[in-house]
């Protein structure tokens, strides 16, 4: 027994003295407010105070905490309360998985130093990673507390108001329940045994004997899958097994499932299991997979080509050949890890007659249901998915992970089963952003008007299809950028390899394509002697223009406005760069610019959302909202939209979110579709409910509603009527479905792929140390057309987070299977890596969207990387064609350790 004093209360706990304190707090004491994102000191999610000083609880042996005062996020403390309020007011908690660690780190600082400056705040938060917020709102929240100006809780939740997220309170209290935080007491633990080889055959020995010898309840393998041992995103490509069948295609593929007590499954050495491996040469990267003699990884994909994407408009080749100015280049990007701080986790509960309930973190409950039901061999209705809070997703939790494994285990044992991925497991097995090799060409006329664009792009989709086809189809539509380009020829391939499966990651291939295209736009500007802003403004697509898919943009096409909003910032940046570089040799500034566009929702495919809203006779008003909030704030935004449309305050609205047994299908949380598609459905449902109420009350359109218990007051200019809800025959309910109008693409990619697009432009200021090749992004100014900012606070949070991920993508993030499978070697930006960010919101309303709104989630990420690359080029004269721009890569291009000569060619460039 170890005695621990946590938040002033003494506990006796029976734990291995060596067990990490984080485990003991969570499992031993049930204090799950302390999170575990890596168990290796790399993420800081487990930060607690030990004798008042912040520590990673995952690095403290339980015995070492004996007798010490431990403070966790659950503590009752006035300073902590102030921090909580500040975090809410600033939007500093998005998914909230990092929030307990952030709060504890901040508490540690403020107790040591009541008046810290920004630098001190960054220093103290430097050990806690956040993947959602881009840190700035967190830093501001801590500074607000230090300066004693925490904003009072906002009460105005109408559309357009910066309203703190409605699901924020549990996130700052540490009471939010994520995938790993709760499970039935009698749940068995499941641990997957994964292939350490990228390509291998294997045979299994006597699993029953191994089970008995290792003290396990069961060892699961492919033979235990009751239905089809296959899953995958595409309806027609279920190419990934739940448990591999004698053959693995990537390192990290599940081979066996160990079931038993937590201790028993953890104690098994994989090497002791009866698996005989025959290692095969692995196809790493698309070049290997496309080689004529390459092994064929899937029978349905000759030549290892999963799918091709294609778009043709006009005659790009002929125009390129005849053009007065041309640019071309080959660009390479890396695997990028989502690095959500919450590893995949959840539990399954078996029921009668094939029923199964899965409670887990996810972005796509209805798709999880289909996948799980197929694996179990039961109808979809037998499976219920209850999403837990989701500690970050960014596309990575669109695919199933724990769900089919848990379902099989719970079916086989007929007992609840839980599972929590380790960080290594999460990184090795989950999908990544597709590495791309992009060969792009672009042409302009002598006035700088773009005339042609061509792209050949190969995307490494890894061992399984996942979202590969989506990437291959989305890229051709977007690749030429948000510009008027009459002649376009885009060809893409998604190629199977023995690398980690690539799937959906914020932007579905568009960020990669933007890196290539925006560099070519800079090339054309340079060739023409034009300013980089000017060339973009001249070609910016706008209302009435036709896209390469032949779609005419009728509304909400605010890129020209975005660029205009940035002009003054751009000029100021250029002036600053010129002044600085005139006198500095080694540390050089550079300014860069990039634009983007992004179609909201699925590419030319139906993607409806249905929302239901009910005013019950007991006076409860409930939105049955199937859209999972992965931290981006859809619950708040959709709630604001619904409440506004109904005419009641958001405070009156309760929500049931994402439970497939209770909510209608609102589709997946991806592709910037929830505000736009689900928001619109919620608006329509709420309007319908309002119409019913007004009809009941016989009131006119402009009537004001107010709800007090079961008394609903309806007042218009003439009369005030009070409806007693109790007296109604039935609850008032309304449902609406919205499917954005699209037109299927023909063989040449012509059609209406999306109902609306988000647009944005960013300018970036960087400081390059030309002796070391290091890049510090000093400032980013964003102009983004969001249609309508339903909640500017949350929009800013999405933009900051997108910028942070774009910065990581371009400067440091590189997932290498088998080598960067932890947050030690795989680097994401920390609190100290963020630039200042300023935002110009452009609101060019989208008539299809709710109150004019459209998606914001992905656009912010897309222009950041190319804007930074443009700035690096401005500072150094080097056009980087491979990301991330690690210091050694930049130095290779700068050519040696000596500072480059002055003046750089880039000084003429763009000024």
């Amino acid at each position, binding site marked *: 027994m170890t005695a621990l004093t946590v938040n002033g209360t003494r506990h006796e706990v029976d734990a291995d*003295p060596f067990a990490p304190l984080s485990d003991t707090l969570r499992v031993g004491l049930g204090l799950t407010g302390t999170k575990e994102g890596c168990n290796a000191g790399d993420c800081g999610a487990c930060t607690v105070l030990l004798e008042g000083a912040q520590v990673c609880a995952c690095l403290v042996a339980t015995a070492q905490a004996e007798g010490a005062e431990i403070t966790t996020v659950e503590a009752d403390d006035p300073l902590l309360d102030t921090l909580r309020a500040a975090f809410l007011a600033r939007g500093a908690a998005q998914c909230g998985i990092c929030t307990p660690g952030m709060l504890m780190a901040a508490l540690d600082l403020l107790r040591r130093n009541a008046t810290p400056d920004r630098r001190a705040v960054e220093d103290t938060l430097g050990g806690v990673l956040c993947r959602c917020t881009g840190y700035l709102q967190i830093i501001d929240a801590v500074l607000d507390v230090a300066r004693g100006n925490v904003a009072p809780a906002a009460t105005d939740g109408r559309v357009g108001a910066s309203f703190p997220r409605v699901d924020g309170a549990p996130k700052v209290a540490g009471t939010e329940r994520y995938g790993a935080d709760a499970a039935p007491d009698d749940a068995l633990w499941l641990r997957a045994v994964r292939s350490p080889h990228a390509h291998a055959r294997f045979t299994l020995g006597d699993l029953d004997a191994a089970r008995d010898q290792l003290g396990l309840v069961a060892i699961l393998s492919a033979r235990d899958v009751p239905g089809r041992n296959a899953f995958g995103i595409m309806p027609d490509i279920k190419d990934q097994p739940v448990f591999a069948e004698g053959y693995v295609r990537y390192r990290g593929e599940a081979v066996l499932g160990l079931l038993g007590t937590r201790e028993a499954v953890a104690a098994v050495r994989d090497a002791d299991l009866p698996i005989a491996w025959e290692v095969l040469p692995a196809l790493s990267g698309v070049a290997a997979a496309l080689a004529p003699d390459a092994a064929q990884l899937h029978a349905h994909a000759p030549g290892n080509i999963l799918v091709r994407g294609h778009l043709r408009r006009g005659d790009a080749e002929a125009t390129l050949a005849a053009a007065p100015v041309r640019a071309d280049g080959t660009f390479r990007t890396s695997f990028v890890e989502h690095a959500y701080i919450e590893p995949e986790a959840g539990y399954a509960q078996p029921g009668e007659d094939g029923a199964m309930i899965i409670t887990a973190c996810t972005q796509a409950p209805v798709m999880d249901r289909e996948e799980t039901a197929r694996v179990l061999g039961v109808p979809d209705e037998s499976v219920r998915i209850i999403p837990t809070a989701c500690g970050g997703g960014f596309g990575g939790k669109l695919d199933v992970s724990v769900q089919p494994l848990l379902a099989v285990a719970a079916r086989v044992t007929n007992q609840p089963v839980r599972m929590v991925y*380790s960080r290594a497991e999460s990184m090795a097995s989950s999908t990544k952003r597709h590495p791309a090799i992009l060969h792009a060409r672009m042409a302009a006329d002598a006035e700088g008007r773009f005339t042609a664009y061509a792209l050949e792009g190969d995307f490494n989709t890894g061992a399984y299809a996942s979202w590969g086809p989506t990437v291959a189809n989305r890229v051709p539509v977007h690749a030429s950028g948000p510009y008027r380009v009459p002649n376009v020829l885009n060809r893409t391939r998604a190629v199977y390899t023995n690398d980690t499966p690539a799937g959906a990651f914020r932007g579905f291939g568009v960020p990669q394509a933007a890196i290539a295209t925006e560099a070519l736009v800079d090339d054309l500007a340079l060739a023409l002697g034009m300013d980089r802003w000017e060339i973009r403004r001249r070609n910016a697509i706008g209302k009435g223009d036709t896209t390469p898919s032949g779609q005419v943009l009728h509304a909400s096409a605010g890129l020209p406005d975005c660029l205009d909003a940035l002009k003054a910032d751009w000029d100021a940046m250029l002036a600053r760069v010129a002044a600085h570089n005139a006198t500095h040799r080694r540390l050089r500034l550079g300014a860069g610019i990039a634009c983007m566009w992004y179609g909201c929702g699925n590419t030319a495919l139906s993607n409806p959302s249905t929302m239901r809203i009910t005013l019950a006779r007991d006076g409860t008003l409930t939105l049955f909202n199937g859209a999972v909030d992965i931290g981006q704030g859809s619950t708040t935004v959709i709630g604001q939209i619904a409440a506004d449309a109904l005419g009641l305050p958001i405070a009156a609205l309760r929500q049931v979110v994402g439970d497939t047994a209770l909510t209608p299908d609102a589709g997946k949380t991806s592709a910037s579709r929830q505000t736009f598609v689900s928001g619109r459905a919620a608006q329509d449902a709420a309007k319908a409910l309002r119409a019913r109420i007004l009809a009941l009350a016989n009131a006119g359109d402009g009537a004001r509603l107010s709800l007090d218990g079961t008394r609903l007051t309806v007042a218009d200019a003439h009369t005030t009527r009070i409806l007693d809800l109790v007296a109604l025959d039935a609850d008032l309910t309304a449902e609406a479905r919205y499917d954005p109008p699209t037109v299927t693409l023909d063989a040449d990619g012509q059609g209406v792929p999306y109902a609306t697009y988000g647009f944005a432009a960013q300018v970036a200021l960087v400081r390059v140390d030309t002796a070391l090749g290091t890049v510090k992004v000093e400032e980013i100014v964003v102009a983004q057309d969001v249609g309508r900012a339903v909640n500017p606070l949350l929009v800013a949070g999405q933009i900051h987070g997108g910028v942070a991920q774009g910065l990581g993508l371009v400067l440091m993030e590189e997932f290498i299977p088998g080598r960067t499978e932890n947050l030690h070697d795989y680097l994401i930006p920390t*609190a*100290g*890596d963020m630039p200042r960010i300023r935002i110009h919101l452009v609101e060019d309303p989208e008539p299809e969207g709710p109150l004019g709104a459209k998606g914001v989630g992905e656009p912010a990420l897309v222009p950041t990387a190319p804007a930074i690359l443009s700035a690096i080029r401005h500072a150094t004269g080097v056009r980087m064609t491979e990301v991330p721009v690690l*210091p*050694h890569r930049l130095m*290779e291009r700068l050519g040696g*350790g000596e500072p480059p000569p002055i003046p750089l060619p880039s000084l003429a460039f763009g000024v």
Partner: protein
Amino acid sequence: MSAYHRPRTLADALAIRAATGALPLAGGTDIHAIRTARAGWGDPWRPEILDLSAVPDLDGIAETAEGWRIGARTTWTTIAESPLPPLFDGLRAAAREVGGRQVQNRGTIAGNLVTASPAGDGIPNLLVLDAEVELASAGATRRLPIARFLTGYRSTALLPGEIVTALHIPRCDGARSRFEKLGARRYLVISIAMAAGVIRLEGDHVADVRIAVGACSPVARRLPALEAALTGLHPSELPHVPQPAHLAPLTPIGDVRASAAYRSEAALVLLRDLLAGFAR
């Protein structure tokens, strides 16, 4: 399950170490990270542990007749926040760069040394401070210079019965030190390369200088040829001195963080920056 010892006296700790060879545990920031890395690929690791956290007198910094004694269990935060002369400026700068604040609050100087990682930020600083490590065993105490204690990539001269009890840093009146660390992000980052230096002037000329580079060889190395070239110079001349030939003791490798060629280039730049700092 293997035993977990948490003795309350040094004598008990040494007796346990002698009898069992249990693994010393200080801040645990390396040990727990290793445990997790191994568990991630199905290799559970639960060694017999000798937890040093309850042994008195192993932490804190004291001035002695010959210099300073830094207790083995002294944390990076303690080092960063202790009032120490400019001789320790480099070590203190390193203390603020080891991991994040959480790691600095737990990680210890002896843990850093015994881990003997090529990228251990403490090590080049200890080399240029001419530190000696104090090793205690049940029967005896001995001291070794850092360069002799570190025998190779993650290996040391620590004997099975020994624990590190302290580091000794000789006085070097009027000297100051500096540290330059290069990583691919601002916080929580393992060094791509680093440089540490101590310098003592007589009048306006360098009388003593000691320079070391880390993360560019299996063990951080002093650079004797560079030290010789710097001796006797005026501080303003120092930044121009380092040349590729001075890096001869280094054998950088390429890994996920950087290429070998880049490490050599960067080491040279860091050395020039380090020396430029002395010139200011």
